[in-house]
């Protein structure tokens, strides 16, 4: 019995470092992680380098958070996620702050370590030829129609005086 309790206690203590918390968990229960060491993993969506440190904004499954790390760690990142890029996946550990006193009360993680675990890539966005032709046709139709209606009005104006048109 005693041993079981000890094992459970040990497991509880080790839990935060044993498995990676998803960003959603961190943001949904911030009080229980505040000031504790957490591990994080997510796609890079923004890098802002400030002197010898940098903000790396990471995104995972609808949640995003800023990670404050060393600038050289941030320079390792090669792809930042946007429309045409899949950003690098970074992982690491750090201290989670619900309201970081150093950074004006922001929610953030101060990274202890941050490494690129999966390199991003360019996302090809080929032009949909069918859609493009359809759109060109509709645009042409719009131009032709307005020209035709304008022409009709001009013809009618010749025949009927305005107020009775």
């Amino acid at each position, binding site marked *: 019995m005693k041993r079981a309790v000890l094992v459970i206690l040990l497991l509880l203590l080790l839990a935060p470092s044993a498995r990676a918390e998803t960003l959603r968990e961190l*943001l*949904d*229960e*911030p*009080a229980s992680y505040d000031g504790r060491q957490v591990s994080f993993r997510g796609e890079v*969506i*923004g890098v*802002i*380098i*400030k002197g010898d440190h*940098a*903000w790396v*904004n990471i*995104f995972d499954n*609808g*949640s*995003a*958070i*800023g990670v*404050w790390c060393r600038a050289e760690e941030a320079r390792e990142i090669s792809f930042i*996620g*946007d*429309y*045409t890029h899949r950003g690098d996946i970074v992982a690491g550990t750090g201290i989670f702050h*619900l*309201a970081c*006193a150093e*950074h*004006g*009360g*922001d*929610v*953030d993680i101060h990274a202890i370590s941050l490494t690129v675990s999966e390199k991003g890539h360019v996302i090809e*966005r*080929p*032009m*949909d030829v069918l*859609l*493009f032709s*359809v*759109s*060109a046709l*509709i*645009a042409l*139709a*719009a131009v032709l*129609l*307005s020209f035709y*209606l*304008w022409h*009709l*009005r001009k013809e009618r104006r010749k025949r009927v005086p*305005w*107020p009775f*048109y």
Partner: protein
Amino acid sequence: MWGAMVLTPLTKEDLRIVGFNLSRISYVTGFVLFLPIIVAIFFNEFDNIPYFLIGSAISFILGSILYHFLYTQAEMELKHALVMAAVAWLFAPLLASIPIWLSGSMASPLDACFESISGFTGTGLTLAPDIDHMSRSINFLRHFLQFMGDGIGIIVISLSILGRTEMSSVLAFKGEAKEVGIRPSIVRTSRIIIGIGVMFLAIGTALFTVAGIQEGLDPGQAFFDGLNHAMTGYATGGFTVHSQSLLYYHSLWVEVAAIVIMIIGALNFNLHYAVLGGKRSEILRNLEVRVLLFVMVAFGFLVSSNLFSSGLYPTAESLFRKGFFQVISAQTTTGFQTVPPVHLMLVWPVFSILILSLAMLLGGSANSTSGGIKMLRVGVLFKSLVNEIKRSLLPRSAVVVGSFHHVEETPLSDKIIRGSAVIAMGYLILFTMGTMLTVLHGYGLEDSMFETASALGNVGLTSGITSPSMSPLLKVTYMFLMWAGKLEVIAVFVLIGFILLALRRGIK
């Protein structure tokens, strides 16, 4: 005008005038949807061009059909203008939702409509599941919709249409004679409004860009983000380029730039006109500015001290950047956020949430890009309350005459008080209904009040209720609230009256 409207049944000509003037709205929408093509070309997003082309072409087709078949030379009267405004703010978002839906960045057509209405009304609630991977051209369109729809369109409407109604006679544009017809008035005021809007857009973009570069952003990104945030900041809209809202930048200076542009956006247009025309003292004498300043600072103080006493934010900087920033964002009805939405629901104390809801419901200045009941009405109602108290204390023979300073000394007439009270009541009724419907969906009371106030006051702060997984009924409810709130409830009443009249008496 109201009596006359009830007596005379609708004629086909009435519908014709409304439809004909909608054609112009359709043309403008077509132009607005065409512009992002330039952004798409600039950023090599050629695959996005068809979306805008289709949306723009459909708008132009509808526009020319309406123009041709409903052509009329009859002068637009106030009732037509009101109905036109109410219909236009449904019609134009419907058109603008076409490219948003085609781009596949929304989960359903309803979501695309929601996003588009949120854009046109300058609300800023978003259902986009992944803003960070959204194409720049679609993102630009969202922000541009807010600038055109709210930053320019709504001010034109409130100055030259809503301001002429009996209910808000004090709000009409001071820069012109009252006898001018509605159409010429719209044309003339739009010119001034576009001029001032573009000027503040340039100032805002410059501020955001400088702040961004100074914080270490790449200059190109700083400019693109800055332009977009200046558009939504001036329109007190609140869409942002990143899913984290302004928290993305982790920067005091970006937030300071945002505060500057938000407060400027929330100032009355009559005030802009007076101050930029040389009456600088107006800025401190104006009743509305005084009320706005007082309420904003008082609410900020309450929220900050509440946050401090709950032990959340221990430093002065964090109280300013979280407490005051959130209050200013709510009061100006912008909706830039520096706190993750879910923290407003789970971490912030209830008192702060209630104060924020109140701030959102009261809103910024009348005739500005902000929403809510508006400070001028709050000020007028408060003054009239004081007068009532005076009246009950003084002997019966004494006559209490109030006045207030709004560009010029204006007597506090019963008409003004009545109009303010009616509109405030309209907002409160809608607020109660919206809150009840949200509570029905299983959300907590304070979060429901917060989210409803955010939709009704066209704010865009969210506690996490607004998400793609929200129930369709709630989405439609919020779309209605955004629309009704932006048109100051008046236009909606008139539209309902128009429809009832048509149903009861038919169309002659």
